[in-house]
């Protein structure tokens, strides 16, 4: 009797999960075809030398692609550029997003108007933004006119390797901060008013309220914003592609990892090597995200 019941139970469990998988099948199929398969194929490619033109041929080369990666100066230049870019852009855009969100949340007059104005850069296509900024950055452009007007030094923003990447940074901070601002804004409105009231009764001033109430409560959102920011900035491609016409110049100043991958695939037709670089990038992003999760997690426990 008991055995029968048990069998019945297992049977119904199996049926239940079968139905579950049945419902998920379309999504699983899409994921398998468009996410899992390409990843597996990329793993395969990273160990091959691929002849593409005039009949596709694969040749197993073991770790040679990775060995070449270690010796390739351009990979390290691209990595350094990308790291510098991430190190400056992510903190700035996070802080800026937080500032924008708090000021909006504090109830400035015409809040909706400001919100729209702030959000406009984010919904504009990044290709268009880059083209507009290239005009602003022109040696005779708006930015230099302004700098000259307030008696600051002017730069050749597009042509000078020392500042070209900075130009892209400014542009990107300006255009992505509002997106994260909206996320912060939603989170700020989630914080119950009663906590602020309690803080006020305890005699906390506005600054203390922000520092000891708002910031800690925003921590999960900050984690999300920083993680997304890092992933997004590590994948910088379109701005530097348009900026340098695909070359990563001047003098490799705007060469980023993804641009380098693009060059190896579409210019040099070296799929295998490009896949190896892509793995390097994936490994870096995963490591940093895990590290960051561990850091944030540790603080929350305290």
């Amino acid at each position, binding site marked *: 009797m008991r055995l029968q019941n048990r069998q019945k139970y297992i049977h119904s469990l199996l049926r239940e999960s079968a139905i579950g998988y049945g419902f998920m099948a379309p999504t699983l199929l899409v994921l398998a075809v468009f996410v899992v398969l390409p990843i597996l194929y990329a793993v395969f490619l990273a160990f091959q030398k691929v002849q593409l033109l*005039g009949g596709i041929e694969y040749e197993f080369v073991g770790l040679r692609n990775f060995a*070449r990666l270690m010796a390739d100066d351009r990979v390290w230049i691209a990595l350094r550029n990308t790291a510098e870019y991430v190190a400056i852009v992510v903190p700035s855009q996070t802080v800026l997003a937080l500032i924008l969100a708090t000021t909006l949340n504090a109830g400035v007059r015409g809040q909706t108007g400001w919100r729209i104005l702030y959000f406009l850069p984010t919904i504009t296509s990044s290709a268009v933004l880059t083209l507009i900024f290239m005009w602003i950055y022109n040696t005779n452009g708006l930015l230099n006119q302004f700098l000259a007007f307030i008696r600051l030094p002017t730069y050749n923003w*597009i042509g000078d390797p020392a500042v070209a990447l900075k130009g892209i940074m400014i542009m990107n901070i300006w255009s992505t901060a509002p997106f994260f601002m909206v996320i912060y804004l939603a989170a700020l409105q989630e914080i119950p008013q009663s906590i602020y009231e309690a803080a006020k009764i305890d005699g906390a001033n506005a600054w203390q309220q922000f520092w000891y109430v708002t910031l800690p409560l925003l921590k999960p959102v900050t984690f999300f914003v920083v993680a997304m920011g890092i992933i997004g900035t590590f994948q910088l491609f379109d701005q530097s592609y348009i900026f340098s016409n695909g*070359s990563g110049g001047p*003098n490799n100043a705007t060469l980023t990892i993804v641009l380098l991958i693009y060059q190896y695939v579409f210019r*040099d*037709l070296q799929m295998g090597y490009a896949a190896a670089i892509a793995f390097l990038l994936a490994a870096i992003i995963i490591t940093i995200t895990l590290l960051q999760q561990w850091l944030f997690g540790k603080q929350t426990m305290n």
Partner: protein
Amino acid sequence: MDVIKTRLIGDAAPDVFFLDALEAPFLMENNVLEPLNSYITPDFDLADIEETLLRPFTLQNQIFGIPKDYSTLALFYNKQAFVDAGLDHPPVTWDELLVDAKQLTLDRNQNGRIDRYGLGMIPELARQAYLIRSFGGQVVDKQGYATFASDAGLVGLESLVTQYRDDRTSARPIDVGANSGIEMFGQGKAAMAIEGNWAIPFFQDTFPNLEYGTAEVPRMNNQPGTMVYTVAYVMNRQSQHKSEAWELMAYLTGKTGMEQWTRSGLALPTRKSVAETLQYDHDPLRSALVAGVSYAMPWQVGNYPAAVMNQFNNQFISVMLGEQSLQPAMLRAQEQANQQIKAAE
């Protein structure tokens, strides 16, 4: 080009497309183009086409492309600027150019920002490769490996760098906020520029009042030199419609077709007979360009042009900006390019 390569790999390339001489060696080597020898009839009159322009599309006696048009580089000079500076003829040698450039460089309001430079220049291998040859250097060897950093190759480039860095009588378009060399020249920010046939229709449209003349590129080391850029029609080896494809190519590059396409002056004809009919060798602006064909260096740098070009351009800009001196920078560029080529082969 990125698109054509991708489509060739995906068997989705068009039957006929046009191909830059620069990209030709790689595609010829990889057997994706149809050899045209068997299609060419005596009627087509292959001998009428300039030999210099056909050679970039030939590999082991097989012809893979029929050049449709070309442009060389010539010296464009602003007539008014020359009159103002008291110069009555364009420079014939590079030394004269350097002297003239000093006289042509102007800072009208003495604010330290130069309003007009003597020479507008583009620090790219595609534009300067002929200078490497003028003292006997080579950009690449027969196997396509970079060799531009030889002592002989650097002499010509050095004079370009010195002029930019020490004389300050030349500038890049980007230094003056222009998008191209022709725009810089058209706006009067450079009194001379070394440009091609594309400049003539551009000036007609954009700067109709500009008074300029052309002359052959000044001789360096008493050697005439210039670049020639050419584009050919080629046939996809996978094409399902080869005879129709050839019919189209034969018309476009034949005598009637070519006359039709080059009459407007947007491009120079590769057929001697068409050039004669259209009288471009007597055209006051185009004769200098036409004259260059006989001694020009075709813009082609082996099977891996991207590696050679990118490394050169990257390091050369850094030399121009004074970050490093020419020889070590070029040696590094050459070594890196060759490393990249070796890895690709």
